[in-house]
């Protein structure tokens, strides 16, 4: 018990709701990419290692589309609209579908009928090809990123107060305000009489005023921070909320396609029994193509949204880490199982943020695998997968 207490020392229970929300937001993206893995696996029994690279290309397509829309680094039109985002989303989904289909046609289809591990190596080869080949022709130096100006939700977040801090804290902060303001004012007054002074190389009198101003300001801000963290707040970044909504919508569309359309039924048939489906008159090739279209489009959507809303600079290795995480999520949920991928993704997002919350952010990347191993020990087929016998 003491050890357990020691391990979680310094944990702030106030932030738990926030961390859980963070986990869901993160998990949604994992889920979106994991869907592509799981669908391809379900149909072809192939781990599509190049899926992460399709995701990377999706981010680049979004970047180029934003350039096309006028958001080049040197020329920013003022303001952006949701329409811009939709164009970018559509562009990366379309291009990713095409890339996915091309990969399937030229690299995976010839390998059908050979050992699955051979297809896996081909997939690794395609993934390397896109990483290193892309680096020759795509901009990488300095790593470009989608302009924050294209993101209408830039810097916006919504705060929900779950529990208010004690009013004493607010009073305390308020008490410190006048002193802060007067110290600041006297420092500003001094600065206005010395227009040439560098803020960081002041003579003694200015320096003294500055120090007083900073000291009072700091006390005031510290009190305000205390007030801020005294309550239980839930902050949701608008961009990430949009991501979550878009993810849910896309998953809804996917579920509809898979469950309620003819192509979806054929897809499930192929996933269930590849050869029998072919014998029953399902055009297997076009169904596999359809699967790659769907999976790659989802990857493109995920890439566009992460690149736009989270602002990470792109490189041709952009898809490596999310690809692996999403793959783990897919296996965790039971690879080949569509609701399983969503569940796996959410679970992983939650697990990662729980570890961070406990103060072990340096083990954040390991927890995904630890959870996976534990789950597989008890459910060898993943959370929602069937554990029927299969052979490599």
């Amino acid at each position, binding site marked *: 018990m003491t050890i357990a207490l020691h391990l979680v020392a310094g944990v702030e229970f106030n*932030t738990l709701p926030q961390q859980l929300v963070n986990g869901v937001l993160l998990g949604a993206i994992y889920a979106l990419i994991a869907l592509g893995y799981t669908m391809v696996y379900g149909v072809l029994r192939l781990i599509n290692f190049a899926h992460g690279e399709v995701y990377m290309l999706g981010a680049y397509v979004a970047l180029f589309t934003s350039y096309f829309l006028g958001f080049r680094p040197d020329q920013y039109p003022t303001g952006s609209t949701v329409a811009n985002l939709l164009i970018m989303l559509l562009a990366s989904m379309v291009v990713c579908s095409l890339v996915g289909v091309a990969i399937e046609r030229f690299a995976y289809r010839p390998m059908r009928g050979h050992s699955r591990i051979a297809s896996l190596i081909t997939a690794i080869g395609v993934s390397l090809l896109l990483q290193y080949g892309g680096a020759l022709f795509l901009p990488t130096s300095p790593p470009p990123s989608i302009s*924050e100006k294209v993101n209408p939700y830039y810097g916006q977040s919504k705060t929900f107060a779950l529990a208010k801090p004690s009013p004493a804290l607010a009073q305390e902060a308020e008490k410190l305000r006048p002193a802060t303001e007067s110290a600041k004012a006297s420092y500003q007054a001094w600065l206005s009489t010395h227009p040439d002074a560098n803020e960081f190389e002041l003579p003694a009198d200015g320096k003294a005023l500055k120090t007083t101003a900073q000291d009072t300001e700091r006390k005031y*801000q510290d009190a305000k921070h205390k007030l801020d963290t005294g309550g239980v707040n839930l902050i949701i*970044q608008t961009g990430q909320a949009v991501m979550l909504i878009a993810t849910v919508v896309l998953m809804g569309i996917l579920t509809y396609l898979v469950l309620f359309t003819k192509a979806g039924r054929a897809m499930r048939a192929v996933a269930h029994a590849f050869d029998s489906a072919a014998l029953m008159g399902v055009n297997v090739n076009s169904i596999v193509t359809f699967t790659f279209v769907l999976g790659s489009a989802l990857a493109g959507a995920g890439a566009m949204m992460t690149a736009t809303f989270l602002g990470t600079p792109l490189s041709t290795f952009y898809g490596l880490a*999310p690809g692996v995480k999403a793959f783990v999520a897919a296996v965790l949920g039971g690879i080949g199982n569509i609701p399983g991928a969503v569940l796996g993704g959410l679970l992983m997002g939650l697990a990662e943020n729980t570890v961070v919350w406990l103060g072990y952010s340096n083990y954040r990347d390991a927890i995904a695998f630890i959870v996976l191993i534990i789950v597989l020990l008890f459910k060898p087929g993943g959370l929602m997968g069937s554990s029927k016998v299969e052979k490599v």
Partner: protein
Amino acid sequence: MRVKTMRRIPYLNFSALAALAVLAGCGCGNNAGTTDTGTTGTTTTTGTTAGTTGTTAAKRPMPTAPGNTAGDKIILGMVASLNGDLKPWGEDCKKGGELAMEEFKKANPNGIGGKPVQLVVSDSNSAAEQGKSAAEKLISDGSLAIIGEVASGITAQIANAAFEKGIPVVAVGATRTDLTDIGANVFRVCYTDDFQGPVMAKFAYEELGKKRVGLITDQKQPYSTGLSNSFRDFFVKLGGTVVDEEFYNSKDTQFSGQLTNLKAKQPDVIFMSGYFTETGPLARQAREQGIGKDVELLGGDGWDSSEILTTGGDAILGSFFCNHYNNKETRPEVGAFLNKWKAKYHSEPGTTMGALGYDATMMTLEALKTAASLDSKALRDSIDNVENFPGVSGKITLKGMGGNPHKRALVVKLTKQGQAFAKAYEWEQVIPTSGGPSTTSTTQSQ
């Protein structure tokens, strides 16, 4: 059913024989090792301290191997990350090196001592062991010196390989402090983390008046972990408190978990020691997570890129970081360098490694010009005696410095227009004792 009846393990027959042979072969290797130094099978006790504990400059072992001598042309090798994660930095470093070479050739059309000079760039693929392969390849091709790498982890491998061969190494952007302890053949043109970290700590504590710092470290980058450590130690020494340290890995995209934790610990200021590729998104997400503008963000030279303003946007404006030089500086070297760069590559250098790669190459070439003879040993001595070399990134003096130039560091502020100069720190202002980086050396181990 023979399987069941064979109790002994037949497939170990030959294995046992081979094991015997292995033992025999080892004995042979030992003999070679004790009698004939300098060949394979020797024991090497060099660089015992690098990576585990910091040491003072006096302990730098001198390489014993003779090194290379110039043939009919003089080859200088450069190892750069032309593929992989560090490509943006590696490519700039290569561009800088090639620019310096071109300029040197223009100024010295007859080469050095009548021999033409050539810069050969080899790829490290952003991986330490491949960097070592590249360095050894360059050395076996007759390279007099190795210039590079931009990352500390890769440079350590290169320096170890070069030490055994007596080849001088001029590191470009490797700021990790204990690198130069590997041997007396290791130099650099940048300052060290033992300087950079304290500079930012001092700036935060004294100029910004901050007392509670939160750290965010990229645990995959040795650069970042080293910088965080030196910052933390100096900040604590000054009297501040470190409220929390959070970690991420390069290429992560979402940091809200770490930032939520950090916010709960109520820091006054946040030090982000990673590269700009993650710092921009970190800053953006920090503001979105409700960390107000009154909490300044600080960083090291890994922030230096025009791209940080695109990735961070408004969120990163008003932040400070430590830089080697500033594109807007009025020193003539800077303007000349930028003009030449733009003429050759039609853009501004993307990262600070352009200037540092240029400086490293130029300094090596100038040292070669004044070297007593055209071989590695003379070149090493010549580099060790460089005084007041007018580099783009500031004056570089290596004489008596144990490989670490005591350059000044600039603290710059990020504004909409780019980097604005805030304050310059000379080495002596920050590190008061004369014996080098004494304050933080004992804890430099992560």
